[in-house]
């Protein structure tokens, strides 16, 4: 029985079905009602497609052909659309998946900490390869892209739960426990112990992260006890003109924390003035490799975000907010939903907020595994129940966004800044921190080869080397620094010399990093030590972008795969010196030619690595290798030549 949903060339061994799969699927009346309630949260029924497929997973253990047809009929969309949406996302359970789907993160921060070894160990232990399922139907092994858990690298996701800092030994233990679990349903019930959050000591008094390690910090009770929702209550009762609030946020100097650094108040001012409803969409699709700050805020201080949502909704006159949380964050979505339920029960969401006659509804919309949904228009396509294809701009979302209505898309951390800014004197306090153009504190996620990876909330403008060496404890095992990726894997890489220099001193703010030829991005710093092979590092991040390209625009769809394969050939010893410039040229051809900037995000770091570490490419091409021991590489049968790292 072939699985038509499997990607060609990626089909694994399938589980021999004990009985033929049903020809038809149908939800029970109770589940149908649940789906109707979901549909009612959106202006259009078909927007409930992503959550509806989660219902299929929950009820039937997978999304299969009859299930897709059933959901299509219930939502009034074509079965082909459901199939197209299903195959766009990587996180839905397929009919060929085993009880436990083991997803090994393979992206750079985890790779730097040995995730390849974990994958190899699991593959050997279970006797299966990538995307394959054990004959007993118990385990499916997958290699996945960044899980936003980089401080816990190498990390593994087992069904929906995260396993942190895994080792071959801890994997063996978990496998034994999964085997011993008395599962009956199609989805295994065993879970690894809940995540332990490590927020390393922070030299500067944190604001956003002040409470995240306190017990019960995610509860309403805890949040209210520390003065939570007071700013919102005050604002909703004040009767202030919303534009005043926009102005106040604008004056605070707050800039978007998601990557682009666009002034938040300015973005709000772009909202089209018409009679259409306005939507506030919260970008919690944190998936830029190396970034894991929003996950912490959601898991540990969700009410801070929710209060931020209330404040923003007031400022932009929106009555409906959608939190788009990335599919892999299943546990976070649950925590967030609990927090929302608590807040509704307390009257902090819903109608007539704080006696103001104003209403705000908030809905959690869970993605399903697609980096591109972090791009704001890709996110909106996904929110509307489609494939996460970015949309052509103009029109910008502030004019024509979700369902054609004016929409503001803000990052989680951006909104979490609002309670501190809008409390009395808060704007001034916020403005007093940071640099001239980069105000306030920001959460920096640091990962890779550092002693204390984790989230640090620091004033913008903090020197990069201070974070790496003083705050995060420097490079482990006495190794030397080699390279730093300062703003997520989309930012051009910096050399150790650039990072260590006093003049110019690279600071963690939008301007300084731009001057250094890179960018602050989402504030994700990936540190690479001297043992890192830069060709391998390039191959790693390019595999990520090739995997995550939505496939719409020709240069990105084809180009990301091309440069990834070529980088892989170099890594495996099949490159030629003459091809180094060609690789650079192919990357350059992708820049500025596409609907969104994913192609640029792949090309810019690639070009920086080729330029700065060209000698390593030459060494690979001339058969000298790079002389460094590093992660395992699997030699594809089709690429000639031996692995060049002796």
């Amino acid at each position, binding site marked *: 029985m072939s699985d038509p949903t499997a990607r060609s060339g990626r089909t694994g061994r399938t589980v021999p079905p004990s009985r033929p799969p049903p020809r038809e699927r149908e939800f029970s009346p109770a589940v149908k009602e649940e789906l109707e309630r979901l549909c009612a949260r959106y202006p259009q029924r078909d927007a409930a497609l992503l959550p509806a497929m989660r219902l299929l997973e929950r009820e039937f253990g997978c999304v299969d052909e009859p299930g897709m047809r059933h959901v299509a009929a219930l939502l009034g969309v074509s079965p082909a659309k459901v199939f197209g949406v299903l195959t766009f996302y990587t996180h839905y359970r397929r009919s060929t998946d085993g009880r436990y789907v083991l997803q090994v993160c393979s992206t750079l921060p985890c790779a730097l900490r040995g995730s390849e070894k974990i994958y190899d160990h699991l593959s050997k232990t279970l006797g299966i390869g990538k995307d394959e399922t054990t004959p007993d139907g118990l385990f499916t092994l997958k290699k996945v892209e960044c899980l936003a858990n980089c401080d816990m690298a190498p990390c593994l996701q087992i069904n929906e739960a995260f396993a942190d800092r895994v080792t071959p030994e801890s994997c063996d233990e978990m496998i034994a426990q999964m085997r011993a679990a008395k599962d009956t349903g199609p989805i295994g019930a065993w879970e690894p112990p809940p995540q332990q959050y490590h927020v390393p000591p922070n030299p500067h008094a944190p604001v956003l992260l002040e409470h995240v390690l306190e017990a019960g910090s995610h509860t309403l009770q805890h949040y209210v006890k520390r003065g939570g929702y007071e700013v919102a209550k005050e604002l909703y009762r004040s009767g202030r003109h919303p534009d005043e609030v926009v102005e106040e946020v604008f004056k605070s100097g707050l800039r978007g924390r998601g990557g682009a650094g666009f002034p938040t108040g300015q973005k709000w001012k772009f909202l089209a003035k018409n009679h259409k409803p306005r939507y506030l969409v919260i970008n919690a699709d944190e998936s830029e490799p190396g970034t894991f700050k929003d996950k912490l805020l959601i898991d540990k201080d969700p009410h801070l975000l929710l209060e931020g949502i209330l404040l923003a909704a007031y400022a932009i006159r929106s009555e409906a907010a959608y939190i788009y949380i990335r599919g892999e964050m299943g546990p976070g979505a649950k925590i967030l939903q609990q927090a929302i339920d608590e807040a509704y029960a307390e009257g902090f969401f819903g109608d007539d907020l704080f006696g103001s006659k104003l209403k705000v509804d908030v809905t959690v919309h869970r993605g399903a595994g697609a980096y591109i949904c972090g791009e704001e228009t890709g996110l909106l396509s996904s929110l509307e129940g489609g494939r996460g294809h970015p949309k052509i701009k103009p029109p910008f979302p502030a004019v024509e966004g979700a369902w054609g209505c004016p929409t503001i898309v803000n990052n989680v951390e951006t909104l979490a800044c609002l309670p501190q800014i809008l409390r009395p004197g808060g704007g001034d306090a916020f403005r007093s921190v940071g640099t001239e153009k980069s105000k306030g504190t920001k959460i920096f996620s640091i990962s890779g080869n550092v002693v204390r990876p984790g989230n640090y909330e620091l004033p913008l403008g903090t020197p990069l080397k201070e974070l790496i060496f003083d705050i995060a404890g420097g490079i482990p095992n006495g190794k030397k620094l080699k390279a730093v990726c300062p703003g997520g894997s989309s930012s051009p890489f910096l050399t150790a010399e650039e990072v260590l220099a006093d003049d110019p001193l690279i600071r963690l703010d939008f301007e300084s990093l731009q001057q250094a030829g890179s960018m602050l991005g989402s504030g994700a710093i990936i540190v690479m030590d001297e043992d890192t092979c830069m060709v391998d590092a390039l191959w790693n991040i390019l595999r990520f972008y090739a995997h995550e390209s939505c496939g719409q625009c020709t240069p990105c769809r*084809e180009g990301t795969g*091309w440069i990834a394969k070529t980088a892989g050939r170099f890594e495996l010893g099949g490159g030629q010196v003459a091809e180094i410039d060609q690789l650079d040229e192919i990357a350059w051809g992708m820049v*500025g030619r*596409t609907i969104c900037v994913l192609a640029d995000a792949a090309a810019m770091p690639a070009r920086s690595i080729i330029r700065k570490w060209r000698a390593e490419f030459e060494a690979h091409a001339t058969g000298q290798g790079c002389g460094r021991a590093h992660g395992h590489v699997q030699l594809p049968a089709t690429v000639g030549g031996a692995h060049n790292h002796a």
Partner: protein
Amino acid sequence: MPKIKVNGTEVEAPPGMRLLEVLTNLGTDVPHYCWHPGLTPAGNCRMCLVKVSNSRKLEVACMVMPSEGLEVTTEGEEIDAARKSVLEYMLINHPLDCPICDKAGECRLQDYTYEYRHGLSRFKEDKVIRPTKDLGPNIKIWGNRCISCTRCVRFCDEIAGTGELSIVNRGDHSVADTHPEVPLDNPMSLNVVDICPVGALIDKNFLYQARVWFAERKDSVCTSCSRGCNVVATVYKNEIKRLQPRFNADVNGHWMCDHGRLNIAQVASERRLKQAKGTVQDLARALREGGNKSAVIVSSSHTLEELYLLRQLANAVQAKVAVLGRDVGTRWVSKSGFAIEPDKTSNRRGAELLFGGGAGGRPTTLGSVVQLARSIWDGQVKTLFVSNQLPDLEWPEELVAAAPKLQSLAVADLLDGPLVARADVVVPTVCWAEKDGTIMNLDGRIQRLRPLVAPPQGARTELAFLQELLVELGVRRHVVSAEAVFREAFPGLDYARVGLLGTVPGASTTPPAGTAPHVGNK
């Protein structure tokens, strides 16, 4: 209307029209794949890059809405290099299997690669493999050739409204596909093959039938229903290999239905009549003798010229007339408003015009042929001339049973049938694809049929045969061309006025000369 400058020349851009369409209408060639004038723009192929004065980057012309004063450059080194680069990306995973590809010769990948002299591939890696498989009863996909332009997906969503297609997977694994259990099967599905700019979607009926560069392309009109979609036929070795829609904004837009497209088998049918029986003189004699006890059966699929002559004939011998029609199913209207008519005759309006269908009434259909059969039994009709252009018409048993009662039966038809066997005079006739003439569609538009292929040996044009008959009867003096008959029937109109896209006769046009004969059996 915003005034813009295209390569230095000032032009006016119609409001609401995207730059690419403006440029295309001006005759400025801008290469593109995903944009199609009948679909909403998608902007994904990135081929139509041009330089516009309000952007630093090159922009895709299909998404630019021209604004006053916009300066556009469509040629130059930067633009050429960019397009060449897009083309290079487009080809890396393409199988380059032109020698065996059905689209060869009409493929935009081939055309632009040729135009941009992009002959060398720098791609050394493994290509992505995507499946080749059936998508539905008539369509097959070569996944490796798909460039994810989404034209087919947009067609199924926006035009047909049936939504059988989606892009599935992502990145370079993206490909158009159906849900595994729901095939691509709708009344206008084959349009996706025409609009596929590459060789991904293939019409199984045309697969490996002809190399298009050896075939001829000839314009005509589809006769499978009263809509009269404008078509272009691909003709190879005197055989119609396929029909494709030809754009006519007033009739069919860019599309046509699958029924019409595939309803070409009868043209080359083995059952075509080839053997004549009797002569024109025999028939003339029979009709003269029959006088007002004669009857003529005509069809709503005759050309206007033929119907005009048949009317002259009926008037000359004072014969009764019954008009054959054919209704199948109900009207089907697509999401975009494209309609497939249940009236499967090509010239109902023409027949109504010439034989007076009555207020809103259609020509007498087979019901009255049954009445005619009764008249034969009653001895009211002794001579019958059946002139039929509807292939495989199911003749009512009553008429077939009554045939032996006739003194004389003449049949002019396309295919063999029960009446032919009983006829004294048999005239094998030519079909819609073999003759010159005009038909009037349901909106009253006169459109022109043209001979696409040579008729089978032995078949005659009814135009000539009827004229010979009328000469024999002393009604007409010469046998003239189709156009001459047309000009006689529609004074003030000629074939040049009908042109490629047809014409609707205005109120000023004189109705067909002569009076309508007695219709039916009243």
